[in-house]
């Protein structure tokens, strides 16, 4: 039930919003005619809108609190429950496979191209998930490794004619090295301090690329980066996009496969231990240095591979593609999707990248939508859209 107090609260929130948005929503200065227009009807609608929004918000908040009170053990997300059930899992995977297989043939090139971006973000998200979600190291400079991969391919191709396929492993190694390089100076840092330093690192890489003209061609960037080759067959533009699409699908599958293996390995467990309690983790015999460095290095590896794909797909790169906003977008994918949850991150990437593309109306307000989504997810589902679950071990098999 809506109480008197809540109505009063919503009323004041509405009042506050009316004052707050007054300068931008109500006052309009017409500079040509030199007059000021007051759009009072806007004020009215904002008041009404906020009042009901506040009431709804409150209602959902209470719903959530009541739910928490009644539920003792934390529930497993529906997706995981379904995936654990073999009767559902196999048909589901088959449908999914067919969908992604026929996708580029039934939809126009434009849609395939958007899907490629989303899939690249899946890779980036899964990579960053290692660092942020599993190892608990807040990295705001992740785009630096994306940049390293893209420039590695572009430059190696420009100067030495290195092909896409050779650039993939080379940039993976480069990403690994750069990840380690970033890892060393930040070994002692945690939380906010770590975030600031990694943010700086991301910007440094971009600024170097912008200013070291003789090396990177500066802000003009590098053009004519060739798409991946297919046995010297000449592909038209549409077929090239389809080809890249399938390469990305393969890379994403590889990423999912390897990241899942890492997560349930000795190294993955060490990452989670480090995230949950740094002191206990060390006291249990885990080297903090090694664990942090492997997290940074392996996270960076996937960003770097993603960078190569990005360069091959767009055929033109410049430093403006690798700003802090890119890092924040990738971080949003991880946080909104579910930190430490591979399925969550995949869902997060599709939601955050595809939604703005298809809701053209909000594309300009992308950051606003991200912000709003983040607040909503953090308040109502702090573990993300789909939270992670840990592996269940069965003991009949192990005991021979």
């Amino acid at each position, binding site marked *: 039930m809506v109480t008197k107090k809540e109505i009063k609260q919503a009323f004041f929130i509405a009042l506050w919003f009316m004052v707050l948005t007054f300068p931008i929503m109500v006052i309009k200065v017409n500079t040509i005619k030199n007059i000021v227009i007051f759009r009072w009807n806007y004020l009215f609608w904002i008041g009404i809108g906020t009042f009901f929004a506040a009431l709804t918000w409150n209602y959902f908040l209470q719903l959530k609190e009541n739910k928490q009170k009644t539920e003792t*053990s*934390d529930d497993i997300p529906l997706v995981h429950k379904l995936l654990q059930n073999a009767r559902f899992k196999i048909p589901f995977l088959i449908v999914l496979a067919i969908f992604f297989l026929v996708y580029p043939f039934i939809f126009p090139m434009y849609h395939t191209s958007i899907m490629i971006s989303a899939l690249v973000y899946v890779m980036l998200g899964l990579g960053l998930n290692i660092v942020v979600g599993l190892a608990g190291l807040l990295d705001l400079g992740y785009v630096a490794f994306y940049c390293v991969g893209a420039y590695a391919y572009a430059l190696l191709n420009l100067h030495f004619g290195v092909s896409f396929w050779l650039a993939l492993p080379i940039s993976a190694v480069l990403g690994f090295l750069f990840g380690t390089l970033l890892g060393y100076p930040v070994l002692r840092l945690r939380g906010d301090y770590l975030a600031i330093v990694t943010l700086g690192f991301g910007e440094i890489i971009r600024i170097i690329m912008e200013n070291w003209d003789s090396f990177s061609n500066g802000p003009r960037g590098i053009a004519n980066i060739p798409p991946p080759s297919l046995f010297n067959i000449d592909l038209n533009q549409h077929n090239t996009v389809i080809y890249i699409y399938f390469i990305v699908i393969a890379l994403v599958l590889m990423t999912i496969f*390897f990241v899942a*293996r*890492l997560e349930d*390995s*000795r*190294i*993955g*467990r*060490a990452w*989670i*231990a480090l*995230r*949950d*309690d740094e*002191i*206990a*983790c*060390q*006291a*249990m*015999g*885990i*080297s*903090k240095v090694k664990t942090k460095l*492997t997290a940074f290095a*392996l996270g960076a590896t996937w960003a770097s591979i993603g960078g190569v794909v990005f360069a091959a797909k767009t055929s033109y790169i410049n430093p403006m593609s690798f700003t802090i906003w890119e890092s924040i977008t990738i971080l949003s994918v991880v946080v909104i999707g579910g930190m*430490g949850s591979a399925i969550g991150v995949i869902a997060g990437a599709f939601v955050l990248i595809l939604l703005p593309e298809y809701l053209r109306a909000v594309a300009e307000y992308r950051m606003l939508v991200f912000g709003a989504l983040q607040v909503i997810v953090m308040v109502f589902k702090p573990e993300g859209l789909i939270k992670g679950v*840990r*592996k*269940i*071990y069965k*003991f009949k098999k*192990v*005991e021979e």
Partner: protein
Amino acid sequence: MEPILNVENLTMIFGGLKALNNVNITIEQGQIAALIGPNGAGKTTFFNCITGIYEPTTGDVTITPPGKSSQSLKGLKPNQVTQKGLARTFQNIRLFQGMTVLENVMIGRHCRMKAGIFGALFHTHAQKNEEKKAIYDSYEILEKIGLEQYVNEMAKNLPYGAQRRLEIARALATDPFLLLLDEPAAGMNPQETKELDDLIIWLRDNENLSILLIEHDMKLVMSLSDKIHVVDYGKKIAQGNPEEVKSNPEVIKAYLGDESEDA
């Protein structure tokens, strides 16, 4: 025989506070020893100093693992100390909340495993065997400690007493020769304390372990310990078997307060 742990002149200064002042303690193989003292006496600080979490201001810590030669722990990181065979639990429970009970114990196995990135990515033969063995060993430890019914539960959902036992299980998984328990009975009911008493004795007798425990529950300390060390204001004031310590006037004074001062 050499003591397995020999701490000499350990001093730890925080700013102006001498949390430990020239403390000497030795532990023999197979012993259950207790470290007692009033609140703030420096007991936890002592654990932190020998396990490498704090670097002591001065003093030497030497270990002699059974069947091995003596070595100093000076300058070692906490994980290196654990690797050498000292394992500990924490006064304020520090489990890995985001992992299952089994995985918590598997973390303890970490330092006895070798698989690296390559093994994890490609599931090499060696990695698979090692992983299988770690799962099996960890489960076995849970059975010993009596936690096997919780195996796939998240650590944070365990009852309090079980969380304390899980800390012991996790420490055991690192294959220690000396187990350091920081107030293992804190917050336990009498029944749980009794079970803990039995567990500690069982560990000493069956796992070839020596144990040093910090504890405020005097009944538990007196019934378990072969030897008791008493600290007060960072200084060691007494040591001996339970009878000796109980009747030591210094100890009585430290615990009951100095009556002559009150007058």
